[in-house]
């Protein structure tokens, strides 16, 4: 299908983008970066914005180590996360998870900030971001605002971003030296949407963290002893059934993904 017509703006800076959003008033303005979720949604009639604000002329990509954090620019594409050797050393969990996003062509264009702002509960990168913790940096009419990652994902396709804010970067907490990471996903086909996925971090002090995706309306975080987390995940999640699998199967899958991601993280920590 051909998308419904909309107005189109291509601002040259974050400030201009914010001004366009603020000027939209009551009209539905939507930001587009890589467009790998949004353009199909436009074509399917699932998104019907009045104004599309294209960030392709705003330079927001790049990865930078900042002391205890790593700043990932909003328009850094999945392919960079997947293949860049620097990312593999700074953010190994993101590199591991990015391989599972969409397919190679989607990863060539889709962006980290776009995935976080879209907040699909089955998406991999929100799971990774929450596993790291840190802050989202958003710009609005009042300037920059920092949103803790733990407070960012509010529900299905819903975040703490205001309608006139632009997500410019995520500052992810670096994992302690000697941590191990793992990521496991189950999908019906290679590179399809996750039925369930899990990111795991095992820290040198023996503590672990698991974040699961696809089994709730947002990514869910669990902290505890590595041996107990998978069972905790399986008993805590309350997935809904859908056209593909039952709620009970999905709950089970969440536990399986958590267990396998944790096993990988322990192996990685020992390596």
């Amino acid at each position, binding site marked *: *299908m*051909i*998308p*419904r*017509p*909309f*107005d*189109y703006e*291509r601002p040259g800076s974050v400030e201009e983008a914010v001004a366009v959003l603020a000027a939209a008033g009551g009209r539905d303005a939507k930001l*587009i970066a890589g*467009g*790998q979720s949004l*353009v*199909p949604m*436009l*074509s*399917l009639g699932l998104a019907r914005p009045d104004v*599309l604000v*294209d960030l*392709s002329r705003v330079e927001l990509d790049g990865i930078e180590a900042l002391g205890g954090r790593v700043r990932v620019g909003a328009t850094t594409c999945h392919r960079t996360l997947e*293949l860049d050797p620097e990312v593999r050393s700074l953010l190994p969990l993101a590199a591991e998870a990015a391989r599972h996003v*969409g*397919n*190679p*062509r*989607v990863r*060539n*264009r889709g962006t980290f900030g776009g995935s976080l702002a879209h907040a699909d509960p089955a998406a991999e990168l929100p799971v990774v971001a929450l596993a790291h913790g840190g802050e989202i940096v958003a710009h609005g009419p009042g300037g920059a605002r920092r949103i803790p990652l733990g407070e960012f994902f509010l529900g299905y396709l819903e975040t703490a971003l205001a309608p006139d804010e632009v997500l410019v970067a995520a500052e992810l907490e670096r994992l302690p030296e000697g941590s191990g990471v793992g990521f496991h996903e189950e999908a019906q*086909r*290679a*590179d399809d949407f996750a039925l369930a996925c899990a990111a795991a971090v095992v820290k040198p002090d023996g503590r672990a963290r698991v974040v699961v995706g696809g089994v709730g309306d947002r990514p869910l975080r669990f902290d505890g002893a590595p041996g107990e987390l998978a069972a905790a995940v399986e008993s805590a999640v309350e997935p809904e059934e859908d056209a593909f699998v039952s709620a009970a199967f999905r709950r089970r899958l969440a536990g399986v993904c958590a267990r396998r991601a944790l096993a990988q993280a322990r192996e990685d920590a020992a390596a």
Partner: protein
Amino acid sequence: MTLELVVNGRRFREPVEPHVTLLHFLRDKAGATDVKYGCGEGVCGACTVLLDGVAVNACSVLAVQAEGARVETVAGLGENGSLHPLQQELVERGAVQCGFCTPGVVLGSLEAVRLGLAGDRPTIRRSLAGNLCRCTGYGKIVDAVEAYRDRQGHAS
């Protein structure tokens, strides 16, 4: 608005509405009907093109987002009417039946080989995720990509 871009070396300057996808622009305005309209939602890979050298699904890019870009389609690959070596391998190994997925398979696999993501058969299969073939299956396509990769290895 007016869109300027280069398709297979040919410059276009055409009025375009913002809601038109690059896929529709290429097929309807640039005559590039070798770019196939499959699913229209970024899943099947039939509409793969190179956008400034990077493989993308043309259905999932708005034409206006390709302003100033260089687009290459599968028709731009061969020289003087001859097939590209990967296309030749696909033909020789029976990896083409209806041919609808083939433009996407060719452009996607060329990128995978160029990036060194075609080292073994499982890796090649992974790189073909997002290229749906409903005729031959993937065995012969993987054979062809493998053969092309080896030919490249010998050539360099």
